[in-house]
């Protein structure tokens, strides 16, 4: 088709946060009547780009043009008034109000200041029927499914004379039927000439609905492609990138000794989070989990650790059938979990390195039996040295440490418990190359010492370098379990992630 003039053009966009270049010279354009997917791993800059566009953040460099005019929005409301509407993953509507009100509140049809309920309901029904939705508009929004709520949000967004509609992960909590309904609505809007910016972590959905995609990596533009001209494998490759790690090579991984099975998950699953999976982790074995963000990697870890309740299946630890109701019972069975979200779920920034390290051990002993100071110092000194935590000052506040060193503090906390299984969720994300290599070496040493490790990382090279066995996740399903031998390469792994089949 002859490309019409773009309705939206962003050029040379730069956005700096303290210490991070979130966006660096990114170009982006949106044509009327297209669904344009914005792709990239977590931290690639997708959400920053959307926030810059909708006026949540200012831009540091570059310019935005809407219909050929330069614009700069001071707030989401200003963006909305200019015709850029956003529907987020969490539906930002008032579920206590009726469907009709949610579409019209703030713009209700009135006569002499009196709200015309009848006119409002009629118009709401009209708008929804244009989206192929036939529901009772006077019922409260809460009585409808999330998918319907999502579409009501879209109806509201579109009725404000939208030219550009941004859908930020609208499908992440919808089931297949609901997604199909949403896509019908999206196609309908596309026909009306609305430009749709679509973000999703589900590759199949991207390929089903989008015409064109823009890929970001580490805040930089990788490129803009027609969806029909880019295979899934190429897409995943471009998203993850093939940075040849400038780390020294670890020696070839010795084959895992035939340790006894430590953790055996049998059809373990949780509806809506992860489909039932079967996974065995042996003593001294490093099991890697690969897959895109949102593919269910963390969900697997949380189920094994008891942080979420398993809906189905059984879990055995050391041959014994267990039901982990809380992380506490997992800790009691010598499981440890380093969360990917170290600030929110792990470290306490206002405590010192020593206090953060001792925390889990103290909790395991119970607060009535304080750990003697001398013992504390001994343990902390040992791990500060072993993990090379810098600055090597146990009384430093954790908030003052770099990301990599914070990660090591979190590791130390779990290591003094001497766990049998250590779950590491993205332990190397956002930390510098040196610290990354240290953590990788440590994982190798620990497993040589007999500890089992479940290693989750978005970086395939890293997973391959460390793991004896790699589980591949896609769309919340464990699709393959591959032995890490000479034949398994990042290409083969990328292929598996993209196709969902065994390589």
């Amino acid at each position, binding site marked *: 088709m002859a490309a019409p003039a773009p309705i939206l053009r962003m050029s040379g966009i730069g956005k700096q946060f303290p210490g991070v270049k979130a966006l660096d010279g990114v170009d982006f354009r949106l044509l009327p009547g297209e669904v344009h997917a914005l792709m990239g791993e977590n931290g690639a800059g997708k959400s920053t780009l959307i926030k810059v566009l909708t006026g949540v953040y200012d831009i540091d460099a570059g310019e935005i043009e809407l219909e050929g005019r330069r614009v700069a929005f001071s707030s*989401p*409301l200003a963006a*909305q008034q200019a015709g850029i509407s956003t529907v987020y993953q969490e*539906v*930002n*509507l*008032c*579920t*206590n*109000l009726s469907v009709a*009100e949610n579409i019209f*509140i*703030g713009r*209700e049809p*009135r006569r002499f*200041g*009196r*709200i015309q*309920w009848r006119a409002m309901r009629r118009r709401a029904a009209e708008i929804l029927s244009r989206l192929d939705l036939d529901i009772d508009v006077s*019922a*409260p929004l*809460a*009585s409808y499914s*999330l998918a319907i*709520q999502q579409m009501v949000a879209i109806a*509201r967004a579109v009725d404000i004379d939208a030219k550009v509609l941004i859908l930020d992960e609208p499908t992440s909590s919808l089931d297949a039927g609901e997604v199909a309904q949403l896509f019908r609505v999206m196609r309908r809007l596309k026909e009306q000439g609305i430009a749709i910016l679509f973000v999703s972590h589900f590759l199949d959905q991207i390929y089903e609905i989008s015409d064109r995609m823009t890929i970001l990596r580490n805040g930089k533009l990788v490129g803009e492609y027609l969806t029909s001209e880019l295979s899934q494998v190429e897409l995943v490759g471009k998203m993850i990138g093939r940075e040849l790690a400038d780390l020294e090579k670890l020696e070839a991984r010795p084959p895992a000794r035939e340790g006894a099975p430590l953790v055996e998950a049998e059809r373990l699953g949780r509806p809506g989070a992860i489909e039932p999976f079967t996974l065995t982790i042996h003593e001294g074995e490093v099991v890697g989990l690969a897959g895109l963000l949102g593919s269910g990697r963390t969900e697997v870890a949380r189920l094994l650790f008891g942080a979420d309740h398993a809906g189905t299946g059984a879990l055995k630890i050391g041959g014994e059938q267990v039901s982990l109701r809380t992380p506490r019972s997992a800790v009691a069975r010598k499981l440890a979990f380093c969360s990917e979200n170290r600030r929110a779920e792990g470290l306490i920034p206002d405590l010192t390195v020593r206090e953060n390290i001792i925390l889990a051990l103290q909790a395991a002993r119970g607060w009535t039996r304080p750990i003697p100071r001398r013992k504390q110092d001994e343990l902390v000194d040992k791990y500060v040295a072993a993990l090379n935590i810098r600055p090597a000052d146990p009384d430093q506040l954790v908030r003052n440490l770099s990301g990599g060193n914070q990660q090591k503090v979190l590791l130390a906390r779990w290591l003094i418990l001497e766990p049998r299984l250590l779950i590491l969720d993205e332990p190397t994300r956002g930390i510098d190359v040196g610290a990354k290599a240290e953590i990788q070496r440590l994982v190798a040493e620990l497993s040589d010492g007999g500890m089992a490790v479940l290693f989750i990382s978005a970086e395939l090279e890293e997973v391959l370098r460390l793991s004896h066995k790699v589980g591949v996740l896609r769309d919340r399903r464990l699709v393959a379990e591959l032995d890490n031998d000479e034949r398994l390469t990042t290409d083969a792994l990328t292929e598996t992630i993209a196709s969902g089949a065994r390589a």
Partner: protein
Amino acid sequence: MTSITGLPGLRRVVPQKYVPVLVTACLFVAMFVAGGVRYDNFATGQIILNVFIDNAFLLVVAVGMTFVILTGGIDLSVGSVVALATMVSASLLKDGWPAYAVIALVLVIGATLGLGMGAIIHYFEIQPFIVTLAGMFLARGLCYTISTDSIPIENETFTAIAQTRINLGGDLSLSPSAVISIVVVLIAAYMLHYTRLGRNVYATGGSEQSALLMGLPVARTKIAVYTISGFCSALGGLLFAFYSLSGYGLSAVGMELDAIAAVVIGGTLLTGGSGYLAGTVLGVLVLGLIQTIISFEGTLSSWWTKIFIGVLLFAFILLQRVFSAGSRRGAH
């Protein structure tokens, strides 16, 4: 929607949102019938009108409280503002001010206090509980700067209003205060249902975050509800002055709690976003009827009122819990 056990038949006939109000209505009818069976001369229309007459001030205060609670807030200052209103009117009338000037001034004072508290709550992002608690102490303290004693009201306009009875035909009559309170209820119900301000009140209570993202004037709405509550408290204070014909710094102690109880018994969710003024009216009527029944009983001490209110509150809070749990499950 998840079903509410025990009320399946009811749910099929009426939408779930009306169920709490209907429960309160049924309770009121049941109490009225039980009273009529047990006591002679109870089951008359005048008994209900007397409840309106005796609780006109509480009804007006509870109307303001309904606005605040619908946004998810709370206003603890209302009882003190009522007392302050009685004190200001009594002392100014004693100084010979004209009645209507006093009434206007008192209403302005109440609205201004509410406006101030609302502005502090919104702009400094402080919990309404603590801001209105401060307002409660402030207003109560101001009463004592006027006088520590009770000041009688001898103004002709005030005594005339206090003694007038409006004949409704038959043996039925209402006081001007009760009429005012009913008019306030009607205006407030119209505002909540047919104006943008009213709908924004519900939206803010449903989800303040969403309301902001939908571009609604959340700041204006929140400040407005506290202003309305302050105004209603002052008006309630004037009605209280008509009723008692005096101003006293210790009057209306704990009335904020009665008002909150009436709103909650009327089926309004304390978390905001759900409830009706009709429920609040019924809540006040239930509270008033409990007192009437206890006075008919004669042998029971008035403290039984508190016991019944306590038991009712427990029951209604549990009922709300069931409902909010149900709607939350329905949302996912």
